[in-house]
């Protein structure tokens, strides 16, 4: 149905480059928007937990010789579904629960990868860690675009609830907001974004996209709406530049974008006016 849908093709004639740019655009926007939310809620570790959950799910798919992307999504959803209830039941801070689930996911992934290597299946996990923006199918781009759109829709539809929860979760609950519902939807969308982006941009870059653009926005923005604009804008600009530089100079794109975002963060800290002290007397 969407096979004829054109996005950046009119602007970029080379299909390989075009798909890579489109993938980066959608992954950057979705992850950086989610990153604004998770950074204020002190859930930054959700990035590497979910990316490793997707990694474990993909490893399960490869082990079972089935569609790795579907198992990546399913396993990420399962881990996302566990975060809230495990935190509640175990009376642990969300970050501690994420640490436990990260360790579990990592163990599952490494176990299966090692086992398959031992069995001579010659599995390469590098694409899961570092992504592969070169060989993409159109359907993968459409799926990423759908998730990006879903993320934006989620933030727009639940903006009030999200902002109240980001301000103070207990206060939001006392106001009558259904905090758990919004929280679980957020986890679901994170799981979906991460698992769909995993083999395209890699686990490393997903984590960077979830944390760094929001941190850059935090250096300059004083209100939430501007953070939701600056974070994806920063991610988009740096990612697009990284894709161009990667193709131009034959460099690995995902690690390059991760490095560029880190440099952008360092620059933002140095240039941030939030740290200035007004020494004027009058």
């Amino acid at each position, binding site marked *: 149905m969407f096979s004829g849908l054109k996005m950046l093709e009119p602007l970029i004639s080379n299909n390989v480059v075009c798909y890579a740019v489109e993938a980066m655009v959608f992954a950057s926007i979705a992850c950086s928007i989610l990153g604004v939310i998770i950074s*204020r809620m002190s859930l930054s570790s959700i990035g590497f937990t979910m990316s490793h959950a997707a990694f474990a799910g993909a490893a399960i798919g490869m082990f079972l010789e089935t569609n790795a992307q579907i198992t990546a999504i399913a396993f990420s959803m399962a881990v996302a579904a566990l975060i809230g209830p495990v935190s*509640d*039941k175990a*009376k642990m801070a969300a970050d501690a629960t994420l640490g436990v689930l990260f360790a579990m996911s990592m163990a599952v992934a490494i176990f299966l990868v090692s086992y398959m290597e031992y069995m001579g299946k010659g599995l390469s996990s590098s694409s899961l860690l570092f992504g592969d923006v070169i060989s993409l199918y159109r359907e993968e781009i459409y799926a990423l675009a759908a998730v990006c759109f879903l993320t934006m829709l989620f933030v727009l*539809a*639940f903006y*009030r*609830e999200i*902002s*109240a929860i980001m*301000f*103070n979760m*207990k*206060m*939001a*609950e*006392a*106001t*009558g*907001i*259904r905090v758990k519902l919004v929280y679980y939807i957020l986890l679901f969308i994170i799981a979906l974004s991460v698992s769909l982006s995993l083999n395209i941009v890699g686990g490393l870059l997903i984590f960077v996209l979830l944390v760094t653009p929001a941190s850059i926005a*935090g250096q300059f*923005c*004083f*209100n*939430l709406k501007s*953070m939701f604009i600056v974070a994806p804008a920063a991610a988009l600009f740096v990612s697009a530049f990284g894709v161009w530089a990667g193709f131009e100079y034959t460099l690995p794109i995902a690690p390059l974008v991760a490095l560029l975002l880190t440099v952008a963060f360092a620059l933002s800290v140095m240039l941030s006016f*939030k740290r200035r002290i007004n020494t004027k007397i009058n």
Partner: protein
Amino acid sequence: MALSVVDLRGIYTAYEGGDRPVIKGLSLSVDKGEYVVIGGPNSAGKTTLLESINGLVRITHGNAIVCGLDVAAHPHEVRKKVGYVLQNFYFDPFTPFTVEQVVMMGRYGRLGLFNRITKADRDAASRAMRLVGIEDLANNTIGTLSGGQQQKTMIAHNIAKEPEVMMLDEPFSNLDFRAREYLQGVFKDMVRGGVPILMVAHAFDWLPDVPIHLVVMNQGRISCDGNCRAEEVEEIIRKECSVA
């Protein structure tokens, strides 16, 4: 007979992981227009009582009807009608929300999902800020305010909610005497308008000259529940706490 807005009968409340209930077999009735002061030693269960009334803490036994709703069955609906000023809060200087936005958040529960903010909501938020005296701070980010100003903001947040019951947990701890007197006038007006106030407090020199429904708690139970004058509150609490 006055209609009870809060009707608790034999409630027990426990926190998950706790080895015993924090509130034990407590019964309390609060009518419209009552000014309730809840006193008692530390760990008596005062905050837990407030959070049982709005369903933030689970009631394990007994019956709790607030604003005509069963708290156990409809906790979200109850919270939309009950204002609750928390005891402790801190907002770092870079918290990206203005005073106006925080006060408006008080309306979000009653707005529900997918409904637009209306002029009535904006007017309620403006009125609340004017009432509390922070309208000049509307565009300031909350993290840049003093502790007292943040406390006023949280009070305005709950007034904007237009609650049917207002609960406050030590709301004056960061406020100077002038602010306390002024806000007590605001609460007196709310009580006159029929909204009962339930206030947990440790200091009582600023209580307004209205009939007080005094509730003294100790070890999860009510040891004294009756009406008195404002100037008698401290003496009664001291007596109850030294006897227990």
